[in-house]
């Protein structure tokens, strides 16, 4: 039994400790926003925040997050108004959209560390998140827009 805080709510997870957090979220807790893409931390589709920092939930055992706080895309904001989420909609980033929850979580983590990232910062921080539809050019724009939205005090 592992106690984990997910999106501000405490959960007691009766699973094997080596079950990756991703599968506990998706199949046990019922939060399907974090996606399965590779299972080896190669694609970033499963990105969530652990104590505020972006991590790949597909390789993070539940035992390693016991007693800690996890935020998924569903908990990034109450209503989709986090500056990164707004920027993603305004720039019409998503095509199929499958990777975008992970992209958004990585971008939110970047902006929390660095309010005004350079283009190189953006590429470096987002390089772990694959997008097969090829939305990268819009992702760069959306991260810059989110930075502006945050700066403008228009955050949540």
């Amino acid at each position, binding site marked *: 039994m592992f106690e984990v805080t997910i999106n501000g709510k405490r959960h007691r997870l009766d*699973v*094997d400790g080596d*079950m*990756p957090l991703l*599968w506990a979220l*998706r*199949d*046990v807790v*019922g939060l*399907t*926003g*974090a*996606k*399965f*893409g*590779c*299972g*080896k931390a*190669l*694609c970033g*589709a499963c990105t969530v925040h652990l104590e505020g920092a972006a991590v790949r939930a597909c390789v993070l055992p539940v035992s390693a997050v016991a007693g800690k706080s996890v935020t*998924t*895309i*569903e908990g*990034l904001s109450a*209503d*989709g108004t986090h500056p990164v*989420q707004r920027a*993603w*909609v*305004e720039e*019409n*980033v*998503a*095509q*199929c*959209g*499958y*990777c*975008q*929850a992970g992209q*958004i979580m990585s971008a939110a983590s970047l902006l929390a560390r660095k309010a005004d990232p350079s283009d190189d910062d*953006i*590429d*470096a921080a*987002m*390089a*772990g*998140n*694959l*997008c*097969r*539809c*090829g*939305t*990268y*050019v*819009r*992702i*760069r724009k959306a991260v810059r827009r989110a930075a502006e939205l945050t700066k403008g005090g228009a955050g949540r």
Partner: protein
Amino acid sequence: MSGGAGEGLGRRALLRAGALAGGGLFLALASCKREAKPEGAGAEGAAAPAPAAATEAAREGVEVNAFVVVHPDNSATIRVAKSEMGQAVRTTLALMVAEELDLDWGRARVEQAPLDAKRFGDQGTGGSASVRGAWTTLREAGAKARALLVAAAAEKLGAPAEGLKTEASHVVDPASGRRVPYAELALLVGKQKAPASAPVKDPNDFKLLGREHANVDAPAIARGAARYGLDVRKPRMLFASIERAPVPGAKVASFRADAALAVRGVKKVVEVPAQGPDVNVPSGVAVVADSTWAAMQGRKKLAIEWAASPHASEASAPHLAEMERATSAAGRELVNRLGDPDGELAKARAVVRARYEVPFIAHATMEPMNFTAEVRGDKCLLTGPTQNPEWAAKSVAKALGLAPENVSVEVTLLGGGFGRRLNPDYVVEAALVAKQLDAPVQVVWTREDDLRHDFYRPPALHVIEASLDAKGYPHAWRHRLSTAAISATIDPEAKEFGLQESTGASTMLYRVPHRSCEYTHAPIGTKRGWWRGVHTTHTVFAVESFLDELAEKAGKDPYEYRLALIDELKVDRPKPNKDFPWSPDRLKAVLKTAAEKAGWGKALPPGRGAGIACGIDHLSYAAQVVEVSTAGGALRVDRVVCAVDCGRVLNPNGARAQIEGGIVQALSAALKEKISVNGGRVEQSNFDDYPVARINEAPAVIEVHFVNTDLRPSGLGEPSVPPLAPALANAIYRATGKRHRSLPIAARPA
């Protein structure tokens, strides 16, 4: 359906444009209490499967016809019957209905139609055909719905229908100033006779189409609320992971169920019987559990022994050698010929010869294959991401021995498609597992499963020989091509492949008085399928690279050289598409626009280079200028300028996204992607050994320019793909002097 008559027969049959059933009257009684949901609600609609006759929307509104439900609060639901895999079809097709019906777009939501070809027409999504087909069928369905509402208003108001107008989900009588909401009229349309036809709008009168719109699913995607196949959850649902034959044709000889069953959460272990080439389900063993993770852990314990397969000695190297032999002599199929290229080449003083090679590549959709199936008695309920629910349902009915009408399909959002999700293998497999359980089961492919059991873009070898005339233009041109034919995967008895496989080569619009195209099929057990752009992903690479090489021999600018050569196609086959015949003028126009916008011919600093290429794909025209820099031996794509003629652009934001995405995906394939086979097995497994383009490798700038936007729309999902690889190779050549004739180009191209 694509590239004129050069389209693969297999796909054409499977994606045939059925007559749309729309326009008939379907009336459902209103329960009259639903509030309009906020934006993005459509995505949830996709996750709430319901029988076709009683979808969520229909229960709480009036169906004006199959595509439109009007709700008591005068909001509307538009049903989209094509699969959304990122091409914005749920936005664009819904806009087409809303436009003709003058719906209040701000209060319209989108619902995914379940499989029901009788009502919705052909639901196969591929061949860049959705907008092209909907241009007539779906607009007319919208216009017919409008005619019904206007007729009802005319009766209610006692005013002649001809004098009534429609706007923002109201019928307006300009004479009296009265406005009647559609919701009121929808209750009366049952008394109206459905019109046999209704005029569609003059495109100059469009209010919605042609303007900027966000994707209808964008808000749900940003919240993590959009539902894909893997997000399907049903009461008592179980999860399955399948160990499949690593070599095509190998069958399970033995396995250990007991060890798998000992894993916590594992409920059952069942065998999956191999299915024939029409669906290509491999022999396998499924571990069913209460979580995906448990199923995956149980699978590791199976210790399967595989019986021998005739494909066990196949490998990429000997397959390539076979294609080398095939292209070093006359091809088995003569696709077409003009004049006497063999004779002219034999007597030419100099012959330019080049060889171009591409490997197998995988679709690698970000959402791995999956489907959720439940078998209840003689019925099968399927829910998941498919580009072709009808093919899936028919295949499942056949595999399970059910009546086709007893197989239902709810289509979720697709986490990428690119042609992979046309094949129904993974749907049939899920049904075969579900048949052995008394609960719904979601079969989840790992990334390794997905990369090793794809239907790959086939490897291809091109040998082109040409002689030049006194002015340096091609006089004779012989193109010999060998691939592992795509359609042979699902139809091993097929005999002729060349017409489809050579699309883009046998159909090139360059004027050559003596030209031929020959084709030879090189069989292999590894499955092939339709990868975004299909044949043009390699034929255009070969032709457009070779054109650059000839221009250089002739001492001419590659852009001017192309412009001078583009001409009518004079070969006797394939035949042109009657609605979209090949147009040299349209090809020239995109070439000119790309060159002008890119500033073609401007001086670039050392280490930088620009390349140009053009092509016709799925009846649309595209030209690209790629600019690269190679400082320090590392390649960087600085800029891609793309001009596209897909006719009228209905959803410009989504259209630009398709071009941008196609360019990035094509760049990924050109630079990095390669599947190899050894011992009959695919060697790659995940994104570490099958790398695809990441954000730091994406072009710094992508510019998109549309031309000829007053013509009837054709496809846009694929046409941006083919010119990228040759324009890139041509640019690298200009920058470094190194000519890349084999894909993928290594990470260090200089």
